[in-house]
């Protein structure tokens, strides 16, 4: 693949394969390719560049999750899909801020994409809960949990990092931390 081609707009299939393979370069090309379109939509409809960043990243995450879970079927151009998701998200945001004047300036064609943004919304709520539960958990529990479950480090490594005398102690500590995390997580409503 030539350098020029790799730096241009990726084809839709490239993007899907790239996401499945966790390819950084594809993600970058995807991000750079369609951001101006979304920026144009947002800043010309009562939004700022920061709003555009939020909305666009949310849309990319929606796409990312959909591709990862395997239920993404490309029924239109990827460009149209991203635009539609951003448009939908921005309308919702405007309505929440009471800034929606009943009219939106469009720059691309779009589809209706209601249910997908809803699903993402639920997941976001779960993640927010998890984030604040982890914050409440405090150190060293937070790091132990993150190292073990997110960064996939072994108990042996954690044991050494934290200076536990043996792996059993570390395991007991991790068990207690997990129990507390669960409690904190489910306490939030």
């Amino acid at each position, binding site marked *: 693949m030539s350098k020029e081609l790799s730096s241009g707009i990726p084809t839709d299939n490239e993007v899907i394969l790239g996401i499945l393979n966790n390819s950084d370069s594809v993600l970058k090309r995807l991000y750079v390719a369609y951001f101006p379109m979304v920026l*144009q939509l947002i*800043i010309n409809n009562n939004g700022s*560049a920061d709003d555009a960043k939020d909305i666009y990243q949310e849309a990319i995450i929606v796409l990312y999750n959909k591709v990862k879970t395997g239920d993404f079927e490309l029924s239109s151009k990827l460009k149209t899909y991203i635009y539609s998701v951003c448009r939908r998200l921005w309308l919702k945001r405007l309505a929440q801020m009471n800034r929606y004047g009943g009219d939106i300036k469009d720059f691309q064609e779009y589809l209706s994409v209601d249910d997908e943004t809803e699903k993402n919304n639920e997941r976001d709520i779960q*993640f927010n809960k998890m984030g604040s539960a982890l914050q409440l958990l405090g150190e060293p529990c937070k790091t132990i*949990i993150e190292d073990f479950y*997110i960064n996939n480090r072994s108990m042996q490594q954690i044991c050494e990092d934290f200076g536990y005398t043996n792996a059993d102690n570390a395991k007991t500590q991790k068990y207690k931390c997990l129990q507390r995390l669960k409690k904190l997580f489910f306490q939030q409503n």
Partner: protein
Amino acid sequence: MSDNQLLEQIERYLNGEMTKDERARFEILRNEDTNLNKKVAEHRHFVNLIKQYGERLELEKRLNALHSEIDVHSLEEELIIHPSWIVSMWRNHHSKISVAASIAIFAVLCTLFFTGYLNNKELNYAQLKGDIANTKKSINALQSKVNGLNHAGKGSVNPGNFRGTGFAISSNGYIVTDYHVVKDADSVYVQSFDGKSYRTKVIYSEPGDDIAVLQITDPSFKTFGAIPYAFKKADTDIGENVFTIGYPRDVIVLGPGFLTASTGFRGDTTQYQVSTPVDFGNSGGPLLDSKGNVIGIINAKETHVEGAAFAVKSSYLLKTIQDIPDSLKSDLNINSKNVLAGLNRVQQIKKMQNYVFMVKVYNQ
């Protein structure tokens, strides 16, 4: 087995770290114990959530890194739609513009108000119908008129609601006056110089020219005799010595003057402007030139200007008379013979005063 150990087992099971034997034993246990089965499912779900949360954080970090490489500011400059200068000026300055506009409108209204422009035309253009009920002067006049009526043997004590002047246009009882005098009238009487009162009927009116034609319907009426004045068809020139006679009071009053303009109020070409002194009650009176030709009918004056009265041109009177349907005018012959021409003003008035009437209008 403590909870701690159980959890470790579950994790080892889920991560596929158990040996074949262990795994088989654990699965049997799981099948037997629904509680254990539930715990396994719960744990898997929770751990997945933590993992996904981690992935999300990771992804967001990557996206933010990508975002920081984009020159958002210059893109923004390029993509924003700049509204036209008039729209952006309105957005930036609309409060100031609104205030300025309000002040301007207010100033214009104030100016118009104080210069009297907003006042109705009626204020400086008064039709000269005498509203008797409203003026003390008129009430006094009425008193004497009622006495006069009693002397004449007529029983009416109602002086009439409005008063104007009218003059004969033919010897057999046709009288012309202003339309605004007889407008909305229930009944119209004319009273002659010698105090005789006759009932009349409005047979035709031309509101556009403010002209009305009355016919005496009273059985006691015979004839006026030959009318001494004629009607001028052509327009009269500015500077002509003119006069009017009429009933602004209960006696006949002469108003001498000059024809001062060939158009009336605000350039109305159907009228003359004259400098004759007129008052309420002069409406419908004849305007005559020095030779005794009728050249117009007095109908209004300008209240803010001294001595500016208006008269409908006689050519419009003649036109109106022509327009009367034949069924309504029996033997209406316009007099064309002027016997006043050689006489002086005193003789002229003496001859014509019998042909000028006070028009009394009753409604309700």
